[in-house]
């Protein structure tokens, strides 16, 4: 496939401890957070889920439609995001059974690796995109998998809309449910700081002035430049100066939500409105606070990037991470949740690179 974006530098090798990784995400990034966490739980010590549902939620009700692809999309919309009542939402017990079978099939790491992990799970009480009852099911899902109560921090008392929360004055008001899905929380703490501190324990205070830099790397080598991956030409990583100078580090994977990739432009009347709407997608990897706290704690923050595609083969117009199967080669037997998923393989390969491999 001919390159339409200029080639960027490759992702560098660092000395990351690949047994101390963590991951967090918003919305589709949160669904993918759970998938990545379970797929490679031997690498992760914890996860942060902001407005996301449980593992393989989109496969809750196969009978929703005779056509598998339709069923999974309908499930994702109407069971995993907007159930009219909680009882019409995802079923934690059923999905735990599915996860256990998936592990027995060797498609993901053994679930015993989750036993000591730390989970931060958040739902805004004003979230009108992913219902709070769905996120409560995510908590229940992890409880049933054996995560101790003290390791699981569930926050549901903030009147926030569907967003990651910051202290930036430019960001949306707290209760808003619209792009860029970055909302302002009154106070002095970024939500990303709470996530990383809950996962990793007490950390050095965030930097007031960054010592490192945001790297752009060519992401295409990690997914073979296949269109179905819905991943962008470029990915990003924040690297503290100490890490670039050779210090060992940990890696935190920060997964943006739908419509938050660096090159996302909204669709107007069915057409990408690139003539009028500049992409705002670099906000997620520059203004959400991850870099500031990573800088003082020798954490590399990896920001993989997804992008939208809506054609005869792939329906992902909003640039979401795959949590319902759009990237799978066989729609009737999707693999989006496993180690073999094209997006999970790509992110895993990025982590391996950061670990020096």
């Amino acid at each position, binding site marked *: 496939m001919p390159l339409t974006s200029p080639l960027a530098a490759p992702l560098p090798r660092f000395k990351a401890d690949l047994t101390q990784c963590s991951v967090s995400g918003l919305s589709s990034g949160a669904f993918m957070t759970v998938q990545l966490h379970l797929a490679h739980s031997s690498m992760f010590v914890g996860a942060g889920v902001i407005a996301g549902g449980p593992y393989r939620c989109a496969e809750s009700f196969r009978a*929703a439609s005779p056509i598998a692809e339709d069923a999974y999309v309908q499930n994702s919309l109407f069971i995993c995001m*907007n159930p009219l009542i909680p009882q*019409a939402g995802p079923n934690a017990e059923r999905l735990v059974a599915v996860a256990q079978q998936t592990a027995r099939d060797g498609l993901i790491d053994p679930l015993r690796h989750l036993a000591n992990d730390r989970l931060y799970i958040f739902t805004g009480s004003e979230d009108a*995109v992913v219902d709070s009852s769905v996120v409560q099911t995510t908590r229940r899902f992890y409880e049933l998998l054996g995560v101790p109560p003290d390791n699981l921090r569930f926050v549901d008392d903030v009147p926030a809309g569907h967003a990651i929360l910051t202290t930036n004055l430019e960001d949306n008001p707290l209760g808003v449910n619209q792009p860029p899905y970055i909302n302002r929380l009154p106070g002095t703490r970024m939500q990303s700081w709470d996530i990383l501190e809950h996962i990793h324990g007490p950390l050095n205070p965030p930097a007031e002035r960054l010592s490192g830099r945001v790297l752009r790397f060519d992401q295409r080598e990690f997914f073979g430049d296949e269109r179905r991956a819905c991943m962008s030409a470029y990915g990003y990583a924040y690297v503290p100066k100490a890490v670039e100078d050779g210090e060992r580090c940990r890696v935190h994977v920060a997964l943006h939500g739908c419509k938050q990739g660096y090159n996302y432009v909204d669709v107007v009347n069915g057409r990408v409105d690139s003539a009028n709407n500049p992409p705002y997608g670099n906000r997620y990897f520059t203004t959400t606070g991850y870099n500031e706290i990573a800088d003082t704690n020798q954490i590399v923050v990896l920001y993989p990037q997804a992008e939208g595609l809506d054609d005869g083969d792939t329906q992902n117009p909003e640039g979401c991470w795959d949590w319902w199967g759009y990237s799978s080669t066989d729609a009737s037997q999707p693999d989006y949740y496993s180690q073999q998923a094209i997006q999970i393989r790509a992110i895993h390969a990025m982590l391996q690179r950061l670990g020096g491999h």
Partner: protein
Amino acid sequence: MRNTRGLMMDAVGARPEDLPRAQWHLVQTALPHPEHPKRAPLPLMPAARALSVQSLMTHLATRQSARAMQAVALLPALLDPRTAAEGLSFATALWQQWQSLQAQWLEGVSELAEEMGEIRHVNTVSKFADQEADLMQQSMALVTAQATATIRLVENLQVNVDWWLSQRATPA
């Protein structure tokens, strides 16, 4: 205007205060506004035309929801107090969603009315034509958004009820 496209990021969660807030906004658009002295009151023609479309959708949604409730009635073996209570919750949730659809419509009409009421200066015919075309497109977008949101709600209800009944029939 809240826009519903039947896509992943539609903000379709309903709140009890949606409709009262929107109704008050509509009342305000029909009255002179001290901060916008040149804004005209609410025009009636676009609202009247679009209401006919909404009425059609109302009938469709009612039929579908009636079908869903009939499905519940056809399963007497599953009708225990808990199931009945959850069925009532469905009806309540559906009603709240419907109220929010009304609110979405009123908010859109109010915003359109405010837009139409603005008396803007134009120096060229092309700018005037562009402004009038914009208003037409906004009117159409409002109707489309409302229709899409209604269809989405119908689908939502169908999948939810089917899934809910499926879980009752085959407990985990």
